[in-house]
């Protein structure tokens, strides 16, 4: 009888990497990769950057060419949806009909755009960005648009604002919270980006909410703010976060909180089912709590962890989180999780556009955000991962050698990062 093998639900970075890593780990059983999008797996980060600017085309954002899947005996079912999981019989039921059996099931179902709950959000010219199809729509609209309002001053919103500005549009960003990217970065970084966008001609409005998207014959003509201001726009882009796709797991009776709940092995209470990437909530040793992270690093490293486990060598997931965002010519590199910090120190100078912010919780270095200081970022990853002792004074002193410190921390016995 044919072996059931592994079924992976979701063809994003996490799903793709699970399949690729399984083969790289020598896994010989069948692999089925199922995703709702009609395309072969592609990278999402360029969708809000190089793809819209025209620097990268559809071909160049594919994670691998189509032949990769057949060459590696990965059965790719694109444009297919998993309707339900029958856990008792280890089967998934798919939309086009039929059932597929699994020995291991990996849920990498990703997330969906959070909808803006105001009138007019359904108008022509109001768009969100998550998928390749949505990116194509935005690209088409950007060709004729003159005035763009971006709702949401997080990574996606600001990347879209930068792109639209670079394409010569009038751009306004409306953020409900008092500062940009406030969920993840320190005020120094928020302020740096506010100033930088402003210097490029982007109007940044923080602490303002959109109450209505304005309609002219079925097309957007602007937005109305709570303070009464109306901002004209022929294109409105919304980036106010995502909601994890947990319905499939919940319907199968798996626990769901802020994502599908998994343990440190990324396993659900059903020991045949893993959940990874944007859809999964797991205990993170660096944060010291359960988190759900939305990043390429998290997707790819969790995929590798699960692939290794399915290949017979399980180990707890303990990769250090890192992130990046590109806005205009500025790359912000982030290492660690800054939530819960009680002190920040700065290394370098904001006016020189070359600085890092080091985040501490008590004595412990927990995160570093860097602008044009790649050594701080890369050595920071080593230092945080090793739980190295770095004092705020040392971090702030540009003459201290982080590389030397990082090397020392690798040689020293590992401390528990959660301690």
């Amino acid at each position, binding site marked *: 009888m044919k072996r059931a093998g592994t079924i992976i639900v979701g063809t994003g970075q996490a799903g793709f*990497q699970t399949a*690729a890593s399984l083969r*790289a780990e020598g896994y010989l059983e069948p692999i089925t990769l199922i995703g709702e999008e009609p395309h072969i797996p592609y*990278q999402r*980060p*360029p969708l809000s950057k190089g793809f819209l600017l025209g620097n990268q085309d559809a071909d*160049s*954002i594919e*994670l*691998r*060419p189509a*032949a*990769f899947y057949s*060459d590696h005996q990965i059965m790719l079912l694109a444009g297919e949806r998993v309707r339900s999981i029958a856990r008792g019989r280890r089967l998934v039921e798919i939309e086009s009909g039929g059932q597929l059996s699994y020995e291991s099931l990996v849920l990498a179902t990703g997330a969906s755009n959070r909808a803006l709950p105001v009138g007019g959000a359904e108008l022509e010219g109001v768009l969100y960005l998550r998928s390749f199809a949505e990116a194509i729509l935005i690209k088409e609209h950007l060709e004729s648009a003159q005035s763009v309002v971006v709702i949401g001053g997080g990574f996606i919103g600001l990347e879209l604002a930068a792109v639209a500005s670079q394409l010569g549009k009038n751009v306004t960003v409306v953020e409900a919270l008092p500062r940009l990217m406030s969920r993840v970065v320190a005020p120094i970084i928020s302020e740096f980006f506010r100033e930088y966008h402003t210097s490029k001609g982007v109007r940044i409005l923080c602490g303002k909410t959109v109450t209505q998207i304005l309609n002219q014959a079925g097309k957007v003509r602007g937005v109305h703010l709570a303070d009464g201001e109306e901002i004209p726009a022929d294109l409105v882009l919304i980036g106010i976060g995502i909601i994890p796709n947990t319905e499939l797991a919940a319907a199968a009776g798996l626990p769901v909180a802020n994502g599908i709940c998994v343990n440190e092995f990324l396993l659900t209470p059903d020991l045949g089912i893993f959940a990874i990437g944007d859809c999964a909530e797991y205990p993170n040793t660096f944060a010291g709590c359960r988190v759900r992270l939305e990043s*390429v*690093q998290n997707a*790819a*490293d969790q995929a*590798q962890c699960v692939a290794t486990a399915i290949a017979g060598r399980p180990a707890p997931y303990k990769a250090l989180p*890192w992130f*990046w965002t*590109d806005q205009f010519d500025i*790359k912000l*590199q982030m290492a660690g999780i800054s939530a819960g910090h009680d002190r920040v120190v700065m290394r370098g100078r904001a006016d020189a556009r070359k600085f890092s912010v080091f985040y501490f919780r008590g004595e412990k270095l927990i995160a570093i955000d860097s602008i044009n200081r*790649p*050594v701080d*970022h*890369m*050595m920071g*990853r*080593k230092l945080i991962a090793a739980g190295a002792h770095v004092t705020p004074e040392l971090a702030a002193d540009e003459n201290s050698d982080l*590389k030397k410190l990082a090397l020392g921390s690798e040689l020293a016995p590992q401390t528990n990062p959660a301690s």
Partner: protein
Amino acid sequence: MPKVIYVSHNGQSREVEVPVGMTVMNAALKNGIDGIIAECGGVCMCSTCHVYVDEKFFSKLPPAQDTEEAVLEIAAEERKPTSRLSCQIKVTEDLDGLTVRLPEKQR
């Protein structure tokens, strides 16, 4: 078209034709060269496209920028004097015959 030769860690060699301007990383992905992961997609955030460049060609390459230099420090396999990130090497006519060796592991 210039040729690039990829040598796997166990010595298997494959020669591929690469359009001028394409990176050594992208050419590897397009041609099914295993051993290049390219997790970040070529933006110098990970080290999973690390290669060892043949000495004959190493000096022909534009020097690594600060970001690449920093990333090479976190490579999974030992950094050597001829280590580069293949996402940062754009193929030119002058690089015809470029030989890169792939490390055993990239993570």
